[in-house]
């Protein structure tokens, strides 16, 4: 019974943390983009603009919810929910910190700790693309459809390289359990050095999977108005934004867990803070890249994914396999 209560509390806390993380990641991105572009960014609502997310949330909730007359009503309503669900579900298996002891109870800082945690994370994140492609199709708008189709091809192509680049870590740690992967890094050193190439490949595919600049072709505003979410407004539009930013936080957490020791760190700060600090640094990197790089051309994006990232990560995987099995 007490375990069930703890589980419910953990789920609610995780959702609260992620929603708060979403709101303030978005604010951080807007302020930082402002600074990168030599302007101020939103700074009027509250001290330093800190209440801006709340104002945005109220605006989104009060906006009229529009649906095109020719849209498929069920799929149109379902699509943003799929996106948000897939984004939130991945976080259930990511360990946020070392188990803590409260009131004589040991509480793991993750919702679930399955033996195949990494694969569960990939399974849920691979479902996220349905929200985009179904939303684009259900809108019955050519720009939405093109955005959805671009997203499908892009995510399928980059998912392969992403999975292959995570395999090396799996081999080095001898497990697919994310907590065990973190503990293996405490024994053998963080995996970023032995896996330096997969680390870079994983980072690039992370940007592509979250559809962010320079891989934001599904919503390229100079060609497709807003891509797959052109027709969405109000809370449904907000759900797509929630999904995008939570995906950003999630893949950052996954990257940190796989290559940078997760919640490990010197003892003067609690493990959960180390995890948040590392994730924060990665999120900053994401924003920096968005402010710096222009968008890819679509054929270059495809040939880069299939002809560069995939062979490179595959070769490095073979090398890692040879190393782990003792052939080398």
């Amino acid at each position: 019974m007490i375990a069930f209560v703890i589980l419910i509390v953990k789920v609610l806390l995780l959702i609260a943390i992620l929603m708060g993380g979403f709101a303030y990641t978005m604010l951080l991105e807007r302020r930082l983009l402002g600074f990168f572009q030599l302007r101020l960014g939103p700074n009027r609502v509250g001290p330093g603009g800190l209440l801006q997310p709340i104002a945005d949330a109220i605006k989104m909730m009060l906006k009229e919810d529009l649906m095109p007359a020719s849209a498929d009503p069920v799929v149109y309503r379902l699509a943003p929910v799929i996106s948000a669900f897939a984004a939130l579900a991945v976080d259930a298996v990511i360990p946020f910190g070392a188990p803590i002891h409260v009131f004589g109870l040991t509480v793991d800082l993750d919702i679930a700790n399955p033996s195949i945690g990494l694969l569960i994370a990939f399974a849920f994140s691979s479902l996220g693309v349905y929200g985009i492609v179904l939303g684009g199709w259900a809108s019955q708008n050519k720009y939405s459809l093109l955005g959805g189709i671009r997203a499908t091809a892009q995510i399928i192509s980059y998912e392969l390289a992403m999975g292959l680049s995570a395999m090396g870590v799996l081999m080095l740690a001898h497990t697919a359990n994310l907590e065990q992967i973190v503990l293996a890094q405490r024994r053998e050193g963080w995996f970023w050095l032995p896996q330096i190439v997969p680390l870079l490949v994983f980072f690039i595919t992370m940007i592509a999977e979250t559809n962010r600049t320079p891989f934001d072709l599904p919503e390229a505003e100079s060609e497709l108005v807003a891509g797959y979410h052109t027709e969405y407004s109000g809370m449904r539009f907000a759900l797509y934004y929630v999904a995008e930013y939570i995906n950003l936080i999630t893949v950052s957490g996954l990257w940190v867990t796989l290559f940078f020791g997760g919640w490990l760190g010197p003892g003067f700060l609690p493990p959960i803070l180390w995890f948040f600090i590392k994730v924060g640094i990665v999120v900053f990197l994401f924003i920096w890249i968005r402010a710096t790089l222009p968008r890819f051309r679509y054929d270059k994006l495809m040939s880069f994914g299939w002809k560069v990232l995939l062979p490179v990560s595959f070769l490095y995987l073979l090398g890692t396999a040879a190393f782990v099995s003792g052939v080398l």
Partner: protein
Amino acid sequence: MWGVYLVGIIAVLAAVGVVAARQPVHSAISLILNILALALLYLMLSAEFLAAAQVIVYAGAIMVLFLFVVTLLTAGKEEQEAPEILSGQRWWAGGLSVAIGLVLVLILAQTPSSGLGPAGPVGTLNALGAALWGRGFPYLLAVAMMLLTAALGVLVLNRPERPSRSSEPGSER
């Protein structure tokens, strides 16, 4: 136990939805639901890795490609029925599927079940890996060769036709 029935009912309803839906995209969504329900069933049978692989491979990759094609084909098209080429094929298909279902139910009724799933960690990554790469390696190799052959076959069948040398003007040079 009721969980198995619930997921089973969802799986069957979704499977019916695949053939009953008028709109191809709705069929695809039903199929995805069916795949997810099957993954849940695998999970209940303690085949964790199989469940994850089912979702990653079928729901995450193959159905996405299906949707890619289906959304392209049905964009902005009116729903209309193509004329049937084989007359009465629906009746035949319906009758045959009911007959197959009856046979399956009969076989199930005669086979005593012994609890849910085998005991022990048979469905984990290590157990499945040991089975596939150890004892079952020849079969894995055979399946891999078969898939490779199919992929090569598609490439060969779809290659652009090479213009024959005699008909091409200027090829004598």
